[in-house]
């Protein structure tokens, strides 16, 4: 049994499985939802097997076709890859369940269901391929796979606003990936390899390398919607159908960020990154404040959640200035933890917003007034999930902020404290505003019955999001295996 698990390269199956399922769903549109659901059930199991296999085996890097690296493409099952695969499997599973309720297979919207599944499975496969890739050019291809699927999924809503948002997203993404690709080209031209590990060993602090780095980082920053390059995000994430919004905010934004983490800590450590780090930190800080303030002003729930994503992305970028020598681990783990926590919490929130839109006909926050009865449980889901966005314990967001503040204090960058704290308070304010409407005591006509697939999966995810901090130890330890930072054991534990 154990041998069976170790022998298989489960993390590779996690890319082949959704891609194959996507083709199957395309070929058999009437069975698409079943194919999607079975895949969504299998992938978390594969993720567990992949983690089990990784803890048992030594090697973390293999190459496609077993060709040696500068030539072959490195595929890695290191900690970062595994936790992202696992989180994607979990969130993806929940979103798939939700989508089953959201896109009815019968009725006049059935054609949307028929295209949703292959597109979503392609996106899933693309994400998984991206997380395990250890090759800069392969990362480009996987990123484009994810982007193209996202564009089509946004446009699936069909309205003109959705189409415009999709098209804008397409152009922005194209711009970002071409800038990234230009950087990759320059690196290949100089070092004749695009392998992350090899490049990390070879790179010298030349001006050309700095230029390549700037291009790649700029492209990825655009794709991960850091202020002031976030302008495309609220529309794109709002206009999409609810399961798609959840996927975009929870997973797709993280794709570009994961590449950034890999670049920063594995490819460019030899380069002088302090100035860029501070710039990213500054933009991240502005994003936290600006995104939160904008969220506070929104009249529509989905827009509020989307701006909250802008703010949360800001936190993610604090990793770069905070990662000094002695605080490297703190910042890196904080970033990874926040990614995971945000993925769970934000997906649950978008699903709630989608259900409200679906049943109440609009996602205006004022429509929540007197939300009781069937959507009472949604308010609860929203509250629990919001805990991780605000950073309340015991959510993952809380510990991520803990690590950030710790890194800021230890590295003497105390000016990030007020930023992180005011972000927390502002988040509480915009969440409280929603809850205020939801708790408002007005009698309203009853809501239609909500399909249970749209009610319970988000609840499960929101509970996981809220309690994530309590179970974060294992994921964090996993992420640290093969990580570019070492575990920050400051003090020995007691008996």
């Amino acid at each position, binding site marked *: 049994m154990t041998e069976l698990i170790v*022998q*298989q*390269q489960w993390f590779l*199956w996690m890319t*082949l499985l959704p*891609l*194959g399922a*996507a*083709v199957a769903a*395309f*070929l058999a*549109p009437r069975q698409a939802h079943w194919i999607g659901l079975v895949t969504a059930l299998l992938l978390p199991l594969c993720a567990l097997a992949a983690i089990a296999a990784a803890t048992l085996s030594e090697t973390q890097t*293999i*190459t*496609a*076709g*077993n*060709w040696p690296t*500068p*030539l*072959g*493409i490195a*595929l890695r099952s290191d900690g970062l890859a595994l936790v992202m695969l696992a989180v994607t499997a979990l969130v993806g599973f929940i979103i798939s369940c939700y989508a089953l309720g959201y896109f009815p297979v019968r009725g006049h919207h*059935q*054609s949307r269901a*028929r*295209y949703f599944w*292959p*597109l979503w499975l*392609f996106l899933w*496969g*693309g994400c998984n*391929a991206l997380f395990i890739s250890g090759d800069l*050019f*392969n990362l480009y*291809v*996987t990123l*484009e*796979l994810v982007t*193209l*699927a996202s*564009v*089509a999924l946004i*446009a*699936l809503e069909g309205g003109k606003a959705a189409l415009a948002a999709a098209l804008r997203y397409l152009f922005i993404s194209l711009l970002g990936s071409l800038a990234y690709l230009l950087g990759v080209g*320059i690196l290949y*031209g*100089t*070092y*004749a*390899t695009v392998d992350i590990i090899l490049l990390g060993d070879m790179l010298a602090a*030349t*001006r*050309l390398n700095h*230029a390549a780095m*700037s*291009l790649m980082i700029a492209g990825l920053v655009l794709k991960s919607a850091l202020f*002031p*390059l976030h*302008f495309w995000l609220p529309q794109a994430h709002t206009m999409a159908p609810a399961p798609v919004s959840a996927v975009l905010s929870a997973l797709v934004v993280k794709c570009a960020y994961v590449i950034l983490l890999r670049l920063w800590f594995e490819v460019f450590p030899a380069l002088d990154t302090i100035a860029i780090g501070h710039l990213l930190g500054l933009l991240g800080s502005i994003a936290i404040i600006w995104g939160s303030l904008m969220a506070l002003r929104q009249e529509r729930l989905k827009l509020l959640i989307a701006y909250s994503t802008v703010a949360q992305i800001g936190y993610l970028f604090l990793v770069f200035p905070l990662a000094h020598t002695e605080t490297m681990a703190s910042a890196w783990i904080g970033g990874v933890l926040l990614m995971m926590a945000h993925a769970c919490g934000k997906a649950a929130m978008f699903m709630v917003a989608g259900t409200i839109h679906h049943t109440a006909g609009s996602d205006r926050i004022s429509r929540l007034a007197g939300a009781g009865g069937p959507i009472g449980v949604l308010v609860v889901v929203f509250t629990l999930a919001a805990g991780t966005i605000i950073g309340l314990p015991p959510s993952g967001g809380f510990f991520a902020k803990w690590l950030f503040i710790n890194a800021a204090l230890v590295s003497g960058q105390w000016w990030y404290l007020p930023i992180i704290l005011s972000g927390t308070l502002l988040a509480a304010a915009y969440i409280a505003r929603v809850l205020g409407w939801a708790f408002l005591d007005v009698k309203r006509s009853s809501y239609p019955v909500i399909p249970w697939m749209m009610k319970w999966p988000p609840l499960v995810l929101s509970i996981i999001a809220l309690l994530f901090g309590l179970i974060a130890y294992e994921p964090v330890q996993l992420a640290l295996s093969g990580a570019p930072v070492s575990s920050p054991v400051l003090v020995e534990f007691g008996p």
Partner: protein
Amino acid sequence: MELALIFDLILLITLIALAWLLLASSDIFRAVVLFIAFGLLLALAWVRLGAPDVALAEAAIGAGITGALLLVGLGRLGSAEHYRGTRTRLTFLQRLSAPVLIGVMIPSISLILLLELSLHASATPGQQGLVNVLLDVSGTNHGVTAVLMNFRAWDTLLEKGVLLLALISIWSLDQARPLFRQNDISPQLTGLARLLLPIMIIVAGFVLWQGDHAPGGAFQSGAILSAGILLAILVGYTLPTRRQGLSLRLLLAVGFSVFLLVAAATLLSSDYLLKYPDSLAGSLILLLELVATASIAALLAAAVVGGHPPDDLSKPVDRSSAVNGGQT
């Protein structure tokens, strides 16, 4: 040598000028035509850089299919530059970001890059040595094909996925509409098509076979075939309705599916993704190239047609408007 340099200079200046002109041109139709010319000249540049594979692909895909896509799109959009509706109010930051980017960042980055590149020119030996050493066991005799179909086959697999994904995206957006009005077919065109189609198929086959030892391969061949399909559509060929369902989808997906199956099989048998058994490498690559060509041809043609075939799931439509590509 000097003469070659002068030729390069002229070519590059023309390319840059064309790019500038077509992007600045006030007539969008002219811009598209100039773009096709740009693509053809670019193919020349690839030849000059010793990359005939890219040159072939650029001519067939970059200029040919992209050109067709643009022209069809233009026809559907209407060629007038038509700005309707109020301007969106841009926030201060949005207004600021464009000039900052254009005025400061682009020139400075370009300048730095150029300066630096002049210092670092030809710093590394590249990988052709490694590729040449391993060519014997790769199952093919042409370096680029070996990289595409074997050394970096994982990229190629995913890229086939992107192609299929693009088609699914297009199908999710719109239903197929005719590329032209029925009565527009001219007899001369039909005659020309009768003459050209067999030649195109032969050329495509040749390019595919060529890929084993010289520039060529599935992309280029598929692009030529898809041009043939489009020509057939232009002279009024329609795919029979009963072929527009599963058969068409199978044809579109076969390239990617077989690639995936090979990947799964190699993973099961050897623990390494896409590690072909030595004795089978040549045949496997041939198989992959063949199915890829068929799929690429169908996919590219279907992308130009630009929509999903009418089917029983969506609202019933007029049969006569159901035109779709997909013949091999």
